[in-house]
């Protein structure tokens, strides 16, 4: 089956990043229709009907998230989370690069549904080129009357502020994002109160992912019921898959939810590179648990992958061939969390430090079997005990890899070097 193109259907069109071309492909008709045919309340209902779940990682139903806002408390705020920093995820960058106006239109539709007059796009500092693209799109949209007062002749008024971060993975966590947007060090806040009740500047706030918002023009144009007919039960619509690692054709592919992972790998990614075998893969992003070749027939369905012990998270698919050392991969991911820990809570701040230290020892073949037990103990003392999910997820991949590749971990103990790399070297020499 071919790719199912919904968000990406016009991405081959030259100049799509400009308002003129975006409008020619039907751009801003969704906003027009939302203002003409819906009240804010009926629009929230329409999004509930679509059954769309958030594309940022947690997969929470968007319509339900929206309905948590307390009635009659204003102002309210909307933040687009474009702080994409999850290892192996690059779909939000792709969406912005190709069609910044699609995001702006989706943001405005959400702002209308939520009766928000100031909407923000929080984009990571490393995406400076994309921030500039968005700034240009916002200025074009403002000049055309899609942003500002009395949008398209309605009573709806909304301003859009593009806010660039400055390098902090933690700001992708929604309360840390809000903290950062308020001008603080980006550290997570205690929940409850949830942002829907007390968020930006203490006001009701919704934080939605880029891809989630990009779906809204299509939901409005075609209807919630139509959208709910794509995909499978509890996983509706399409998703953009960020495919990386040892494959012939890395890149972003949009596919209907519910198709098998194997189809993504074999038909779109061109299979494992160099004619090699798949050893393991990581769906969802750097936080998620490892899966094995036997899981390739799982459907791209959030619940099914969760039942298999991992998650579709933010839409990554990182494939590893037979030459890959899972200890090395675990070490890098642990290093990442160690680097990005915000330091607010001790289990994460100290735990990632010890984890990283041990993983480096293990990868160098200098750890003892007792230290492997210590590693498991450290992870156990972090998972579920950290202030925010960053610390918890710093243990998920390494623990799942330890379980699935126990022999490989044990073979590193006292080996004096990485046994997998040693084997690879021998194979090359032979």
């Amino acid at each position, binding site marked *: 089956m071919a790719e199912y193109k919904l968000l990406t259907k016009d991405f081959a069109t030259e100049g799509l990043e400009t308002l003129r071309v975006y409008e020619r492909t039907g751009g801003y008709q969704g906003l027009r229709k939302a203002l003409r045919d819906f009240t804010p309340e009926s629009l929230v209902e329409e999004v509930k009907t679509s059954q769309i779940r958030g594309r940022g990682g947690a997969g929470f139903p968007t319509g339900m998230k929206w309905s948590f806002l307390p009635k009659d408390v204003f*102002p309210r705020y909307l933040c687009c989370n474009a702080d*994409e*920093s*999850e*290892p*192996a*995820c*690059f779909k*939000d*960058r792709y969406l912005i690069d190709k069609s910044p106006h699609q995001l702006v239109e989706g943001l405005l539709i959400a702002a209308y549904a939520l009766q928000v007059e*100031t909407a923000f796009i929080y984009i*990571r*500092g*490393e*995406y*400076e*080129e994309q921030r500039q693209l968005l700034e240009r799109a916002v200025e074009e949209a403002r000049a055309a009357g899609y942003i500002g007062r009395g949008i398209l002749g309605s009573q709806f008024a909304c301003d859009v*502020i593009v*806010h*660039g*971060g*400055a*390098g*902090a*993975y933690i700001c992708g966590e929604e309360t840390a994002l809000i903290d*950062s*947007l*308020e*001008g*603080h*060090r*980006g550290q997570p806040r205690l929940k409850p109160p949830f942002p829907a009740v007390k968020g930006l*500047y203490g006001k009701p706030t919704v934080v939605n992912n880029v891809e989630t918002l990009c779906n809204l023009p299509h939901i409005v144009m075609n209807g919630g019921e139509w959208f709910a007919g794509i995909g499978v039960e509890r996983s509706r619509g399409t998703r953009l898959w*960020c*495919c*990386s*690692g*040892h494959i012939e054709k*890395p*890149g*972003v592919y949009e596919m209907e939810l519910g198709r098998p992972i194997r189809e993504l790998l074999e038909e779109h990614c061109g299979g494992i590179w160099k004619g090699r075998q798949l050893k393991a893969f*990581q769906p969802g992003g*750097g936080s998620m648990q490892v899966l094995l070749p036997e899981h390739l027939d799982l459907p791209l369905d959030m619940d099914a992958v969760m039942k298999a012990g991992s998650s579709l998270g933010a839409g*990554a698919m*990182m494939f*590893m061939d037979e030459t*890959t050392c899972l200890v*090395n*991969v675990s070490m*890098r*991911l642990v*290093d*990442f969390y160690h*680097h*990005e820990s*915000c330091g607010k809570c001790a289990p994460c701040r100290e735990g990632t430090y010890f984890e990283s230290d041990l993983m480096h020892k293990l990868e160098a073949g200098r750890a003892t079997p007792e230290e492997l037990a210590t590693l498991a103990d450290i992870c156990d003392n972090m998972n579920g005990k950290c202030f925010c999910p960053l610390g918890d997820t710093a243990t998920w991949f390494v623990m799942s890899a330890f379980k699935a590749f126990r022999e490989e971990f044990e073979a590193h103990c006292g080996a004096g070097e990485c046994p997998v790399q040693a084997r690879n070297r021998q194979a090359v020499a032979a």
Partner: protein
Amino acid sequence: MSLSAETRQAVQRHRDRYPHPKSAILPSLWEVQHEEGWITPEGMELVAEVLGVTPSEVQAVATFYSMYFQKPPGRHSLLVCVNVACALRGADETAAYIEEKLGCPPGSTSADGAFTWDATIECLGACGYAPMMQIDHRFHEHLTPERIDHILETVGKEPGPHEPHGGPATPPKRRR
């Protein structure tokens, strides 16, 4: 040394753009870095004064985010991603090659002052186009030794983003 009137005005514009002035700290610090090349004490004081917050609040923010330079960097900043997706496609070799070319270890500046570089574990969002590097916020992807040679040679001759366009390509002045 005080900052330019343009930077002050830019900070004022950021202040007036947000519902609360404190939200303007991050964009204002970017203005400082664009003019100075790094986050100078004078720059932090200016931001604090214009936004009506204390210098310590500004400094707390400036030291949290990894992209703000705490000391003067070379003309160009270069980052190579060595997170897993890039590493699977040879990022360690890319980083080693760049180290050899620039003649200085990660986290330092080349002798000619052209590049401050680092190999970062922070995923830069180019996993499908690995190995990659960013120079002055621009993505360079599908790197090979030949491409790296070409890019370093071309960019190395250009002025840095915080210098006036076409100005002399000299290392930034050291202050304090």
